[in-house]
């Protein structure tokens, strides 16, 4: 099992959880298992072709998986995965 950190903007679609324990031997498997648990995340994380959206970065421990082996990157038990979409907020427009 590895720990996946859910960014605040996605928590509403992940049962309000800040982090989730997910099984999987690769980054791709962990993401699929996460989406199986919370289907609402699919369209937010993946394109219709199943690729990671370009405005979402995934880090295994502290490394961007795009510079590892992307979805094929092996995940070991106890690893931490961080999902990080681009954040808008600069501190408070009053809108």
């Amino acid at each position: 099992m590895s720990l996946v950190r859910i960014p605040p903007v996605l928590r509403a679609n992940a049962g309000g959880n800040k982090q989730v324990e997910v099984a999987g031997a690769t980054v791709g498997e962990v993401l699929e298992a996460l989406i199986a648990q919370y289907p609402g995340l699919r369209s937010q994380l993946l394109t219709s072709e199943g690729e990671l959206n370009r405005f979402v970065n995934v880090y295994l421990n502290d490394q961007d998986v795009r510079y590892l082996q992307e979805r094929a990157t092996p995940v070991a038990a106890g690893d931490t995965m961080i999902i990080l979409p681009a954040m808008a907020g600069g501190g408070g427009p009053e809108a």
Partner: protein
Amino acid sequence: MARSYSEILRDVRASVRQLTPAQTQEILAASPETALVDVRETTEWDQGYIVGAIHVPRGNLESLIEAAVPDRNRPIVLYCAAGARSALAARTLAEMGYANVASMSGGFQQWKTHGLAWRLPPRLTAEQKIRYSRHLLIPEVGAEGQAKLLESKVLLIGAGGLGSPAALYLAAAGVGTLGIIDFDTVDLSNLQRQVIHTTDRIGQKKVDSARQTIRALNPDVTVVGHEEMLDAGNVDRIIAGYDAILDGTDTFETRYILNDAAVAAKIPVVHASVFRFEGQLTVFKPYDGPCYRCLYPSPPPPELAPGCSVAGVLGVVPGIMGLLQTNEVIKLLLGIGDSLAGRLLLFDALDGSFQELRLRRDPACPVCSDAAVEARVAGRPLAVPGFGADVPFVLGASPNGPPPSAASPLAGAAGGRS
């Protein structure tokens, strides 16, 4: 047995290694780790000193040298006006266990006579010496660093949640010119975090309100107001001449426009964004780390990236992140420390934790890659992804806030709101 000054000096000179000014210059060039220490009085230092020298007046030599040169094996060359005091000081340092000490014969007078490089200290007024005294005490800042800050120009994108604390501390630090892009007016709902504004200025332009606070805090600072939206047409003109940019934007359009222009103009952008209890921070230092497009080549649809007006933010979070940005800006201006270029710092206020992620330059980046630079120089810049959504997203049924408005926040997007 009584001994005269000249007898003592003769003995000391015989026991201390002496270097001519020319030899000193060669040693400084060949081994930059050598500490050049000026032991003259402050009044003499103020008339000029050798570039790169550390000033430790001989009267306080024993008490100050350990802080100035902690490593007793570091080579030291001492100088004074004519070579007598530095020889005496060299003997003192040898007694303190400094292993490699020399004295420059002929002193600063000979150095100047030989036409070697020296400079006048930066001119700080008596009032500035008091105002910035806590900076002047830090060797990494000192009078030279303070003079650099006073000559520096920093552009703040927004006098909002991030920009407010940043503007206050940059002004307090004596950064001489603060540009502020903001066309907004002060609103009651801003005051929970935008601490540069005040209740009695609700309805005033934020640029005017910020200028008023800054002027009251530090009259050394000139505020340049830019009451316009940052867009592709004016960005190059607005950012020209600034040494660093503090990004407090809340819209992706502004952020990408700023990124692309700042990379081309080689101006570092210190970026932060906040959301409820969390913030993230990095430095985009052109060609010395990734740019924003390396990190996120294209923006998310607006529904996935609501601003603080939709999602809310704990007031101290932009305060903390804005000051961390300020810290990075000041480091860049002074040329000290390790910048956050290539590192993304995450802050979680509820956990009270920081985390660091590694960021990399995208070798295929349409803005900062070698190919992109060549194409720009050739007048054929590479195409960059546009703005707006191409995937339908919803924020989800958040119990914490209303759904995002139907109108895209990118429409009418502007800098300076955050």
